[in-house]
Each structure stands twice: as C-alpha cells, then as structure tokens.
C-alpha cells in the first residue's frame, strides 16, 4: 500500500487522475444524499414525514430499469454531453485547475441541456429551454464575478492557488459571496418553481419543462448531472472559506440548509421576479464589492 502511495505522490499526473477518480465516484453519492436531505427537510418544514434520505437513489435506479423513449436520434446524445461536461467541470475544480475554464465548461454543459430540450417537438420542453436560458442570463453574470473577485484578491485564477491563499476570501468578498448565495437558489433549480424543471411536485405549469421528453436512462443521467452540479456549486462556497476547512465545511452545510429554507418560504417566487431581481442584486452586491476591491488595491 505504501509503495503505491509513494508512486502516486511522486507523480503529479497520477495524483490528478486519483483526484478525478475520487470526485467521479464520490460526488454523485454526496449529491444524491444532499438531494435526499433536501426532500426530507422540505417535507418537515411543510409538516410532512417526507421520503427516506436515500430516495433520490431509488428514483435513479428505478429510472435505469425503465424504457428509454426517444423522439429523435440526437436528444439523448445531448444529454450524454451535458453529463460529460458537468463531470469535466467538477473535475476541473477538484484538481485545482483554472476557475475561468470551469465557468465556461459549466456554461457549455448547460447549453447542451438547452439544445437537448430544443431538439424535441414538445412545446413544454421548448418553454422549459427558454426559461433555462433566462435562468442562465440571470445567474451567469454573478457566476463570472466570483472568479473575477477571487482573482482580484489572490492574483490567480487557479483553484489550487485560490484555496491556498493566506486568509479566507470571505473577508475581501462578502458582497460577491452574498450575490452568489442569492443565485444559488436558482442554480440548485429550487426556487422559482416555474423556471425550467423545478422540483416542486404539485406545480405543473409547464409539465416538466426541459425534461418533458426524456425518460428512463436519459432522465436518470439528467438527475445525476444535477447532483454533480450541486456538489460543484457547493465546492465554490467552500472556496470562500478554504483557509479554515472546518469553517468551510460548516458553511457549505449552512448555505445548503439556507437555500432549502429560502425555497420553502418563497413558494410563489416566479421567473419574472427572478429575472428582474438577479441583475440588480448582482450589481449591488457583487459589482460594488469588485469596484471597492479594485480601488482599494489601486491605491
């Protein structure tokens, strides 16, 4: 065992490969458990018993057993690319690679999901895809401000260097962090219930939005990709506190619980409000934070 550890330690490529392997295996486990925790806590907040914490795994295993219907040749290929690029994006952050590349890969992955939804004929799917684009327009400015802010503080876009910075980034970026937490509700596909494929079971305004025409293994892939995405988004929360790992882990859990809480007290939050509020919020919190930092560093 020690012999293998030595080989891995002496070989940086192998260490990276090991990181990726650990991420690929553990991220869906963590993501699925978080999704289950979310359903359980939401149910308790609504005065219900709620499903078991491992329910998301039952759902995905069931979907694997179901028939995969398709209406054209390409739809499931796009979903495959969505999953692959989501895993790629997560691998970038967990191997300490470039933050900007990660944001672009995440956007590319999102675009494949939109393409998949547009490739079918269902009007519900198209509406879902349009709202997914609205969501991306709302959230992505803030998502881009995160690496910009981190760069201003640490002088690097590399996750490995950002994580090793001598002080917790939250001390310099409280506004960026607040803005990021604000968009996280949408990025987790939680709050505006009518966005593109929100989880809320009783709301069926656009049937199942983006996922309307996907079934069986394709739907399972969408669900697993969503778990990867959640883990990745929480990893960015971790980066704000990375200097103090215990605090960072606690904050990740706290932010996740906060999002569940926000979602449950904003049951009628609609996409129009999401769209009009995010840019203002991004500008006021994230933008102001960056401007202050810029001048503070230039003096």
């Amino acid at each position, binding site marked *: 065992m020690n012999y293998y550890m030595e080989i891995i330690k002496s070989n940086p490529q192998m260490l990276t490969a090991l990181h990726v392997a650990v991420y690929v295996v553990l991220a869906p486990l963590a993501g699925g458990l978080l999704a289950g925790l979310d359903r359980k806590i939401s149910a308790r907040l609504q005065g219900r018993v709620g499903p078991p914490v491992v*329910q998301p795994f*039952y759902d995905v295993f069931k979907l694997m057993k179901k028939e995969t*219907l398709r209406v054209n040749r390409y739809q499931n290929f796009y979903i495959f690319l969505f999953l692959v690029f989501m895993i790629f994006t997560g691998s970038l952050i967990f191997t300490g690679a470039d933050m900007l590349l990660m944001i672009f890969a995440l956007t590319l992955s999102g675009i494949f999901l939109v393409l998949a939804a547009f490739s079918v004929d269902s009007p519900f799917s198209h509406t879902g895809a349009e709202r997914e684009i609205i969501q991306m327009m709302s959230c992505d400015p803030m998502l881009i401000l995160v690496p910009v802010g981190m760069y201003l503080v640490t002088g690097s876009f590399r996750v490995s260097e950002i994580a090793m910075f001598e002080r917790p980034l939250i001390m310099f970026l409280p506004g960026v962090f607040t803005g990021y937490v604000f968009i996280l509700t949408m990025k987790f596909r939680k709050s505006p219930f009518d966005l593109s494929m929100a989880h809320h079971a009783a709301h069926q305004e656009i049937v199942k939005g983006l996922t309307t025409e996907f079934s069986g293994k394709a739907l399972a892939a969408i669900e697993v990709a969503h778990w990867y995405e959640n883990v990745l988004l929480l990893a960015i929360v971790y980066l704000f506190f990375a200097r103090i790992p215990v605090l960072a882990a606690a904050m990740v859990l706290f932010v996740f619980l906060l999002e569940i809480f926000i979602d449950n007290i904003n049951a009628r939050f609609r996409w129009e409000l999401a769209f009009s509020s995010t840019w203002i919020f991004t500008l006021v919190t994230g933008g102001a934070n960056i401007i202050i930092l810029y001048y503070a560093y230039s003096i």
Partner: protein
Amino acid sequence: MSSLKKSPWIIHYDATSCNGCDIEVIACLTPMYDVERFGIVNTGNPKHADIFLITGSVNERNSRVVRNIYEQMPDPKVVVAVGICATSGCVFRDCYNVLGGVDKVIPVDVYVPGCAARPESIIDGIVRSLTVLEEKYRAQKKNKKNRNGRSGVITDG
C-alpha cells in the same frame, strides 16, 4: 424490495370525473396522508410516470386522450382506476356518450372502488399496483432475454 417499488411516479388524469375523486387524489399529497413518504410523486408527465391514476367514467371524447397518455408511458407501467366511475361507469354507464369504465379503453391493473374513493383506499390501490409493476418488469426482462437468445437481436431500451 427493488427500486421499482420504492419510487412510484404517478400521472393523474381526470376522464369526466365529478372532481370528487380528484380532490381525494390531491388530498393524498397533503401533510395528512403525505404519499411522498413512500417515494410517490405526482409528475404530471406521462413519460416520467410509472402509474397511470385515472378517475371518471371515460367518454367518447376523452378516450383518445386516455389511450394517448397510456401509450406515451415507458414500460413497465400500470393503470389504477380510481372511483366507481372509473371502475364500471356507475350511474352514468347508460349515458349515450359514456363508455363505462377505464378498462373499455386500456388494460386496468388495480380497481379502487368508492364514491368518492377515500385517500386511504387510493394509497392502498397504488401500493398494490406496485406488485403488478414489479411482475411486469420481471416478465419484460425474461421476454427480452428469450428474444435475444433466439434471434441474437439486441433491442434498444
């Protein structure tokens, strides 16, 4: 118990019901009954559903819709007829436009009688249908194996 039984997703369609049974179906989702504790989710999308929950006596106009929803559901799938109207047509069975029961249009696996069917009996009907779902999955798997063995053709899905 397999994952099929632990994650039943439902599509609910009202085929000329008086809404009595539909209100009871929705009541199952409330904190009082909370079917989500069995993993039951009301999807509203036939392509995501495992169980087709149908209320009402089915008439000439909506039989097409009922058949369409059924055909859009991926295998394995089961049908639960909720309420006495969906079971037999009840007092409406002699109406000129009424077909009299869901089983005149699509195969039904579980009948839940009652006017209106109580939430307890609806939940019981769904739980019973899960055994049928599991059986259908086994039969499908066996069938596929036999077919592949004979002809060597690999089928999609």
